[in-house]
């Protein structure tokens, strides 16, 4: 092992070449171009001029766009909190299952996660639609008299978001709970701590990296899931993602779209940075 790697003639460095090249050309390159583009000037109708300007960033501060940003962040927060409340107990209970059931539940959680998001959204359309499955059940059971008209509303978008991102939270919480040393909890219990006390002082602290990882894994994608807002919100809910998409395809203001992406990227990186500062962990838990 030791002597052959550092042999002067070793061509082992060539193995990293494809990945280095791909990463530099197709990932770093486009990202750098995005930053450059955000400082360029839009031509009258179509295209850009390489002339330095901060107009795009100033444009973000306009109330209309700020509102979209704030609305988007609000929805992302709501989504994150809801997934945490629903997903934490799931991940926690899942980690306590017997080996056999753990594997089964894991498989069942992962499958919808890999299935087409649009297909699952389509299922919700059938459920939410006026006089759809949900209305039928509610009206038959006498809980409501008129159709709820849930489709194309804010709650529908929220449910769709929570539903699509829940597996991230579950898997993150699960992986940190599973690694937990239960003897610490037992020790605390032996020393007289109640179940709740032991949970609050030990379990919650030990699983904190998982919780934080889950929050990031939910919060970040939630800002860009424009198709959920499109399909379940029917254009009533506007997210940063929808705004970027519209700027690219409809308004054709590419520098503005780039500036929006840069800001979104900064917000995203900030979250990951905070996560690393708090947990001292480099990789997010439960990503694979």
């Amino acid at each position, binding site marked *: *092992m030791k002597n*052959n790697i550092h042999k002067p003639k070793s061509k*082992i*460095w060539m*193995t*990293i070449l*494809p*990945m*280095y090249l*791909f*990463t530099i050309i197709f*990932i770093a390159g*486009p*990202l750098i171009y*995005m930053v450059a583009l955000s400082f360029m000037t839009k031509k009258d109708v179509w295209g850009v001029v390489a002339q330095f300007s901060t107009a795009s960033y100033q444009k973000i501060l306009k109330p209309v766009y700020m509102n979209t940003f704030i609305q988007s962040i609000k929805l992302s927060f709501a989504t994150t909190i809801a997934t945490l409340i*629903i997903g934490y*107990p799931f991940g926690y209970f*899942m980690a306590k299952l017997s080996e056999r059931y753990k594997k089964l*539940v894991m*498989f069942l*959680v*992962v*499958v*919808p996660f*890999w*299935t*087409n*998001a*649009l*297909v699952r959204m*389509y*299922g*919700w*359309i*059938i*459920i939410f*639609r006026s006089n759809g*499955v949900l209305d039928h059940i509610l009206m038959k059971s006498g809980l409501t008299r008129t159709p709820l008209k849930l489709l194309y509303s804010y709650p529908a978008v929220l449910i769709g978001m929570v*539903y699509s991102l829940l597996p991230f939270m579950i898997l993150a919480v699960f992986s940190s709970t599973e690694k937990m040393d239960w003897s610490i909890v037992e020790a605390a219990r*032996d020393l*007289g701590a*109640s*179940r709740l006390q032991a949970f609050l002082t030990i379990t919650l602290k030990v699983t904190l990296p998982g919780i934080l990882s889950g929050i990031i894994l939910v919060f*970040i*994608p939630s*800002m*860009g899931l*424009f*198709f959920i807002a499109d*399909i379940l919100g029917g254009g009533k809910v506007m997210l940063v*993602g929808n705004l*970027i*998409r519209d700027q*690219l395809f409809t308004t054709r203001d590419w520098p503005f779209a780039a500036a929006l*992406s840069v800001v*979104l*990227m900064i917000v*995203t990186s900030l979250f990951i940075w905070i996560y690393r500062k708090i947990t001292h962990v480099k990789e*997010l838990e439960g990503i*694979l």
Partner: protein
Amino acid sequence: MNFTRIHCIRFTMKNRTKLPNIYLTILLIVMYLPIIIVIIYSFNNSEQSTIWGGYTLEWYHKLLDDWTLMEALKNSLVLGILSSLAAGIIGTIGAVGMTKVHLRSKGIMEYISTLPIMIPEIILGMVFMVFFSLLGLPFGMVTLVIAHTSFCIPYVYMMVKSRLVGMEQSYVEAARDLGASEVRAFIDITIPLILPAIISGMLLSFAMSLDDVVISIFVTGATTNTLPIKIYTQLKTGITPEINALSTLMLIVTFLIVFISNRIRKRKRY
């Protein structure tokens, strides 16, 4: 003094043991509800998707006759195969190299290469769109493959790397001691050991590629439709029962891929 307390707790615990299972079961049912409904309605003999009109295979027949859908299916399969193959090669060689080479740029390079699955998809789609038009690449299959490869590499890379880290180095060392060349030891020892990780990484890449809609929308040309793009435009314009049938087929394909990938990954642990 604690005995009575512990006794009390034990007692309440007995009653509580069922609660977690109920919670898990209910949530799993909710998770599968939309999926099951799509499957059920794909056999629904009624134009209106709210009324149950009996069992039919009509939508599946119509699906096969839909030329544009079949074209989209073909595109999606070609795209999935090409990008998972490219990611498989680049990701595997990259992971092997990264564990052996000591370079200062390694950390930052690893960070940048995994960015595609860390940043919101929309940003990735956006940067690819503007970058490809800067390069003057024709939008279509080529741009789709490059974009999909970029988010498939991290999956292969991370899986192979974790396998390599957990791998018993003594096998490779034994082979080298017995006179095998570096390349020979790699082909005969390392490859078979990391093969399950490569295959499952590639299968998951294929599933991701087959499902992607956000990035594809940005980098596809006017004439190249993939299946998810087709579904997306149909969901926005008007829903036909054929989508149910198509979705069901896609569900089956994904289910099989995840199942096989899990099997391969869990088989043979060295």
